[in-house]
């Protein structure tokens, strides 16, 4: 399936979850979301395991020639998950404060949640979602997409994810991928 280039009609403060069932589906969610952010001048974060970072960056590069300079200039930040939900929230706080001090006006975050799930328990995952919701979303102009791999997360975990991302129901058709 080809990558969608249609923009996500997201507004600041949205904290969405996307669900995918294939590697191509993951790209369908992450790539247009991040590309749209770069085009709008947002600083974009992709937080994922290293192999996913590589796959997404390669797919983005096909659509955006200047991606290497985006990375060098700190407009696109590729990073693996921190070891705990608290450390992850702290990471976002520090990075976004610094970027705001430098004049950045908006942010986008894609988190491939299986990367964190490999480090923490299912119930501790909620710590990140709630920490992000209470510490990051109200304090920074950010649109975040937490991407869940339906091949790996259980039904119970996906239900929890949907409960923790009520904004998702505003943009449903764009949040489900193959």
């Amino acid at each position, binding site marked *: 399936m080809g990558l969608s280039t249609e923009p996500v009609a997201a507004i600041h403060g949205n904290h969405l979850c996307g*669900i*995918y*069932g294939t590697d191509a589906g993951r790209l369908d969610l992450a790539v247009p979301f991040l590309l749209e952010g770069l085009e709008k001048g947002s600083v974009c974060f992709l937080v994922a395991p290293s192999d996913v970072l590589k796959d997404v960056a390669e797919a983005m590069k096909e659509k955006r020639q200047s991606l290497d300079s985006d990375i060098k200039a700190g407009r696109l930040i590729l990073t693996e998950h921190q070891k705990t939900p608290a450390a992850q929230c702290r990471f976002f706080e520090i990075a976004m404060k610094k970027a705001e001090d430098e004049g950045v006006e908006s942010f986008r975050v894609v988190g491939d949640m299986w990367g964190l799930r490999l480090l923490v328990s*299912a*119930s*501790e995952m*909620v*710590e990140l979602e*709630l*920490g992000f919701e*209470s510490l990051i979303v109200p304090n920074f102009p950010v649109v975040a997409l937490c991407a*869940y*791999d*339906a*091949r*790996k*997360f*259980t*039904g*119970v*975990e*996906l*239900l*929890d994810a*949907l*409960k*923790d*991302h*009520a904004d998702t*129901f505003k943009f*449903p*058709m764009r949040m*489900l991928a193959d």
Partner: protein
Amino acid sequence: MSDPNELLDIHGAGGFLNVSETSLRRWTNAGTLPCLRIGRRRERRFRRADLLAFMEHQPLRPTRGEALPAIDAPQRLVDQPITVTQGSHLCAFYDSDLGRATLAVGFLLDGLREGSVVYLVASARSAKHILKYLKQKRPSLERDIGAGRLVVSDYQKSWRAQIKEFELRLTAAAAAEAQSFRVFGDTWEMRKKSSANSFVDYETAYDQFIARRFPVVTICAYDVRRFSGRAVLDALKAHRDTFRYPIERALA
């Protein structure tokens, strides 16, 4: 008698309220359930008295996106009527038996109140549990059943037979001048009787032969304790109408 100041760890508190540890973390982080933090890892401890108070002071309806606590108390079931477009074929997800009842009762009550003929398709055990709560909200339930306004049945042995059964029942009810219908199906019961592929065929056939042909609103309820993550994604894709329904009515 239990000491109200006794401290329970998160596992004990979950068992006490019959809810998941995830729900407890969510409620404590949201500040709706008090807890103490101890040790370097700041682990949660819960006073029994706080848990009791929390149980007794739950709102009638959840806030947007907030799960209902799975506590065995019928007054916590959602009871605010909502309007749904005829032909809507929705899915909903639950992770506890009370969650299933929460989804079913609000939906079926709305149907009975608007004069629809409503169908509850579930195992005998699940239906009994749901009807227990429904009866507390609607004392005339026995009369509804007697008059055929509420029809309770188990799934047929195959998906084709189930589609045929719906066709026959809805056609007969329409001939008897029923104007609208609601169907609440506890889908694991059908999934148990079919392969994963046949189950998809069932959903597709239902959409084509029932949801589009009759003035019916349908909820296919998915027990996420049984269905995989992949099945949840497939269900969401197959029930796009779900996203026009209030989130608190689709997740429990």
